[in-house]
């Protein structure tokens, strides 16, 4: 004991840090990552590698040389963005397209706003949407690459289930078996492969108290109710609720992207409003819009109203 430390209370601090939270998010994404690598093989590994490496490198370079701020790479948020971006792309995406996605995600969506905590939009989604608009061919051509296992499975090659519906009507998906989709059999971006893998990640996030269930559950419930009503009225025209929940990156978005701290509301009530908004917009785009899926757009649109939601939804104060 040399000199006594003197500082104001409290004198203890939780072990949870920004870094440990981000690490938990990465761990939660692992089941989905593993499934996608198993089924999409080397090409998925390449997409993941390029995405994570470029996100981390870009954040490092930008903080160090452009912003001249303390380096924030160690907080692992760039890794989260990297994995998320990769899970949002088809495994066949060429490496340079992935890199452009990372530049947009980190360079534009995150760093121009001032880095972690300041960005209005979820960086990974901005990256994905940018690619979707700029390179539609790469982003919607879902030819299935050779995986490490399950090479023979080929439910719908060439299009995502939602894309198939947009083009060929509801008959196009009659061959789909939902129990397959639960485990591995969805054409689409890598992270949409297995609902079970995503749900394991969700459970992990809840158990570790990284996120609360409000946003995710309100999105899923809204989509279920919305599509349930339309489907009940006209099942020949509209897809059913289970289909809508299991496809189009809905779970991936609801669990890992809409729950991003920075770009979602702070309060529970706000979270529910946010989730309902995403659910409704997603379904409006899917049923009536030009794009087969709508999750990314829905999240971006709702991201932009988060400041408003935060302004109106405050916590319940004691004695007031």
């Amino acid at each position, binding site marked *: *004991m040399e000199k006594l430390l003197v500082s104001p209370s409290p004198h203890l601090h939780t072990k949870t*840090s920004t870094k440990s*939270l981000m690490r938990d998010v990465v761990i939660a994404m692992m089941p989905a990552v593993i499934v996608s690598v198993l089924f999409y093989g080397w090409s998925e590994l390449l997409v993941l590698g390029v995405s994570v490496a470029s996100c981390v490198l870009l954040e490092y370079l930008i903080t160090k040389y452009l912003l001249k701020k303390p380096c924030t790479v160690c907080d692992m948020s760039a890794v989260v963005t990297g994995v998320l971006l990769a899970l949002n792309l088809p495994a066949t995406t060429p490496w340079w397209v992935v890199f452009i996605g990372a530049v947009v995600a980190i360079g534009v969506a995150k760093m121009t706003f001032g880095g972690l905590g300041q960005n209005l939009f979820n960086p990974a989604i901005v990256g994905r949407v940018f690619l979707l608009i700029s390179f539609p061919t790469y982003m919607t051509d879902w030819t299935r690459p050779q995986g490490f296992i399950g090479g023979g499975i080929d439910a719908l090659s060439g299009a995502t289930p939602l894309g198939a519906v947009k083009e060929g009507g509801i008959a196009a998906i009659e061959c789909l078996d939902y129990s397959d989709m639960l485990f591995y059999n969805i054409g689409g971006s890598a992270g949409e492969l297995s609902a079970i893998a995503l749900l394991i990640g969700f459970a992990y996030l809840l158990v570790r108290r990284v996120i609360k269930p409000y946003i995710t559950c309100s999105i899923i419930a809204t989509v279920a109710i919305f599509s349930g009503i339309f489907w009940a009225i006209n099942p020949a025209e509209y897809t059913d609720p289970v289909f809508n929940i299991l496809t189009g990156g809905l779970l991936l978005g609801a669990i890992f992207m809409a729950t991003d701290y920075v770009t979602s509301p702070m309060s529970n009530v706000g979270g529910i409003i946010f989730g309902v908004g995403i659910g409704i917009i997603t379904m409006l785009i899917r049923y009536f819009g030009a794009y087969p899926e709508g999750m990314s757009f829905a999240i971006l649109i709702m991201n932009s109203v988060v400041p408003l939601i935060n302004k109106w939804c405050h916590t*319940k*104060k004691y004695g007031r």
Partner: protein
Amino acid sequence: MMKTFSIGGIHPSDSKISKDCKIEVLPVPSKVFISVAQHLGAPATPIVKAGDTVKVGQVIAEPAGFISAYVHSSVSGTVKSVGPRKDLAGNNMTHIEIDVEGDEWVEGVDLSDTLITAIPEDNKAILEKIKMCGVVGLGGATFPAHVKLCPPPGKVADCLILNGAECEPYLTSDNRIMIERSKEIVVGAAIMKQVLGGCKTVIGIEENKPEALAAMTAAVAQLQKTAKGYDGISVMTLKKKYPQGGEKQLIDAVMGRQVKSMGLPIDVGAVVQNVATSLAVYEAVQKNIPLITNVMTITGDCLPMEKQHNYKFRIGMPLSYIAEVAGGVPEQAAKIISGGPMMGKAIANMEATTVKGSSSLLYLTAEQTVRGVESACIRCGKCAEACPMGLEPFLLQKYARHNMTDELEENAVQDCIECGCCLYSCPANIPLLDIIRIAKGDVIRIIRTRK
């Protein structure tokens, strides 16, 4: 369902390492320095001077205002000096230095162990005794007890809540007195209850103190069977959650009522007193013993079991002396706290002396207590989730950094109870409470000048 408060709260490890250490009486040192500021309100005025001889329990300083309290000598001997000396935080305050000779008490004090259960009838006399014995709240605020026991005109107490939550990690002194002095505490509660007009009385204890719960429940049952004036007293088990012992939180937990912003507990019919205060009331009223002793915990993860203690100390003992008797300050201690780790004060000066409200010497290692480097707010909302007052600390700190006092007041910074839950919870290590505390002071000053 066990009760607890409804908003926020955190669950730090309770670390009650010394919970089984019986209360030991500290030997009296050769010299004591008794502060005249041992209570909330105006420091007392010394009425002795160098050369005077004093006995144990003799008044040595008188209250200097309505909110102030008597201070008594904790030893017998000769007053050596009356003058400034550094307190815990290193600030100068008047202390009365006494050289100890023998242990001679003033007349009329009953030092026997006999339990006196019969409650005197005259409430006025009881209040006078509580005041004359210098009893103050021992739960942290050290507010003069007799003031709290006289509700302002028009206000009625519906419920007396005895605070035995001891929700701060590490502290075990309340736990020990509830186990070892349970009957005295219940008698004290019955006395306060009678003064308040016979309202319902609830003793709230957190679930992590099963022995104290059992002892207090048994004491209540026995006194209800054998003596008069003990009806309507009950023990309530509370869920373990910090800050359960916060006055506003305890009222919410026990009565399901919430005190309005800037209001007083009595506005919702509540009077809260700590269990240690109840013991002091017993000793004052039934035994004529002024408040010159209390129990403090010596603890820390870096202390071996045999150096963990619960000590009955007398006021005016140098902390360094107590640390020495307890086995020395451990090598690894980087910070020593007086009070709990959440709301206690870091000790700057170990030559400071014990006061009525002293509750611990808590040794924390650098690893435990040094804060991480502050990084950007990630808007995780964990601070708001933790805040037991339902505030939004991330927002308050932002406004505070820009000196936006109107927004701060609108968002109730003045309601902050400085519990530290927000700062404890923030993954980005933002010094939320440090910033909010200053802003709160500013806003309260503005509200006061407006009135």
